[in-house]
């Protein structure tokens, strides 16, 4: 049952991509900006999770996997706050400055975040404390499912469902969708556009940070470059589903995770990343709006 095993692993990785892709797609939705710093916010989630967990373990003699829950909440809050700060400092002054300036600024923020991580935590690989690792699992139809995978999937799907309902059903969610269509008209409708954008920068990086911590827990080790590769993959997922489109990011992330894992399993693990990039190139050549995207890629 190698296929089933690959599918389970693929869905798990897909869930990570979804959590990160949501941040890209929401920011792109409201600002039409590729937030290159998003991957590094994700990376910071992993580091802040590490600090929080070590701190907690220092306080209590007996470690337990439950510590991950308060740590996730801390990570979510801190990374969301950093996200809002980044928007306030580096993106808001450039909102009317065309499209090139914010992209460069975003790359600059990415450099700053990476450099900070490298200088604070060092360039070597970091591992999460053993006490919080979850062992165990079960076999299902010949494929092994670890307890960790079950929790990853539960947490991701819970977050996705909450976000979807939030965007579709609440007033703020409606305002978000309006802002993504047109800033000026939203303002005329009495929407505080700046506030909505700030909220997007709370939610996107918040989810990204959580993903960072879960990924670090799942793989066990990471370093300061993890954000770049993972961020680019998640971004591909967002494009695949149709950027600016929240269900699209979910579909794209899952698809990318599955295709990549199957490709690595049946073709060659070395070419795994190439497969992801080729998907991106093909989708942009043949269907730049993505699978679920409706709007035209770029207006004249």
């Amino acid at each position: 049952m190698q296929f089933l095993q690959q599918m389970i692993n693929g869905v798990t990785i897909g869930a990570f991509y979804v959590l990160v892709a949501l941040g890209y797609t929401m920011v792109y939705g409201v600002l039409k900006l590729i937030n290159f710093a998003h991957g590094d916010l994700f990376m910071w989630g992993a580091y802040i999770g590490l600090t929080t967990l070590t701190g907690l373990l220092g306080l209590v003699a007996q470690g337990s996997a439950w510590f991950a829950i308060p740590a996730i909440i801390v990570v979510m809050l801190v990374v969301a706050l950093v996200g809002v700060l980044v928007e306030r400092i580096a993106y808001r002054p450039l909102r009317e400055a065309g499209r090139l300036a914010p992209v460069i600024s975003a790359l600059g923020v990415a450099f700053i975040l990476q450099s900070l991580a490298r200088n604070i935590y060092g360039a070597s690989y970091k591992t999460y404390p053993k006490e919080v690792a979850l062992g165990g699992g079960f076999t299902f139809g010949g494929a092994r499912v670890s307890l960790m995978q079950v929790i990853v999937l539960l947490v991701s799907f819970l977050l996705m469902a909450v976000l979807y309902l939030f965007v579709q059903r609440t007033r703020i969610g409606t305002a978000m969708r309006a802002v993504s269509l047109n800033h000026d008209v939203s303002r005329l409708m009495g929407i505080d556009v700046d506030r909505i954008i700030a909220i997007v920068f709370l939610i996107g990086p918040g989810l990204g940070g959580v993903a960072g911590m879960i990924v670090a827990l799942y793989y066990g080790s990471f370093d300061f470059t993890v954000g770049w590769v993972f961020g680019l993959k998640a971004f591909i997922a967002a494009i695949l589903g149709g950027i600016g489109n929240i269900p699209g990011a979910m579909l794209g992330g899952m698809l990318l995770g599955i295709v990549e894992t199957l490709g690595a399993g049946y073709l060659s693990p070395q070419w795994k990343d190439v497969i992801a990039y080729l998907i991106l190139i093909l989708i942009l050549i043949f269907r730049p709006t993505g699978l679920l995207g409706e709007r035209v890629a770029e207006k004249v």
Partner: protein
Amino acid sequence: MRNLLSRFRSTNPLYWQGALLVLAILAPLPLGDYYRSVLWRTGLYAMLGLSLNIIVGYAGLFQLGHAAFYGVGAYTAGMLNIYFNIPLLLTLPLSVVVAALLGYLLTRPILHLRGDYLCIVTIAFGEVVRLVLVNNIFGITGGANGLSGIDRPVLFGLTLREPIYHYYIVVIFLIVTIFATQRLQESRLGRAWKYVREDEVAAEAMGIDTTRVKLLAFVLGSGWAGLAGALYAGKITVISPDQAKFMESVILFCIVVLGGTGSIPGAFVGTLGMVTLPELSRPLKAWRDGWLGLAMVTMMIARPEGLWPSRHFRREIRSEQEAPDPSLAVTGRSG
């Protein structure tokens, strides 16, 4: 200050161009080998910056995978030299051709994309090229460690070993580059690029073959980056996929944009900021990326036109930001 500048501008450009040339020739003489190498690197990256300037500055196409062509040029020269014993100087034109051809093949299908979409595909292509080199395709690229043992270039029986020779070679190619890009900018093609950059639909309506014009920008820029790659292979004699990594592409992109998009002196100022200063401040190396990032954010907020902008771009960016022309308000671009 302003007065001085305008007086400076009104002097015959030949005078200060000549002075700069003399300075470029004399500069390495009192320096040691390390600083000569730094100068060489500055010249090489200025050349790369100017090659990318054709794509980003003149034609307004966002290329964030330019380092791939630099890498491909280096690999072409290196592999031809190692496997076929072709002297390095003879591989230079071949590197140009291979990089230009690759530029043609890769960008031909994506020319219809604009703005940030184009930017993303170029990132993806750049990464694919790097991964192909890392994965040691057909067993000829040497994998992640790259290739070593490339011959030094030989000129009239003289093996060019010292950094100073390589520096002068780069200076010669730089002069050619500056001359060529300046002529290009003012040529019919250059004007077509400008038109495409400003308004592609209008350009098309005026009978400009936009596909061909954009393709030419990519091909010329990529080919020239390939040449720089071959020059790199000749001095360092070791090449690795790291040359094609995304960070390099970002540095090149920043050289152009922070220096001043479309500006030739801007490419030099950008190189000084992005390559030379970080190289000289080795002790600060750990924080290098952080400083670069900070500079990028600050520049975009405070001086988006770059440090030494071409007059045209400055006007364009500043007028868009500060004083919107009322005549543009009705027909002005939206979305």
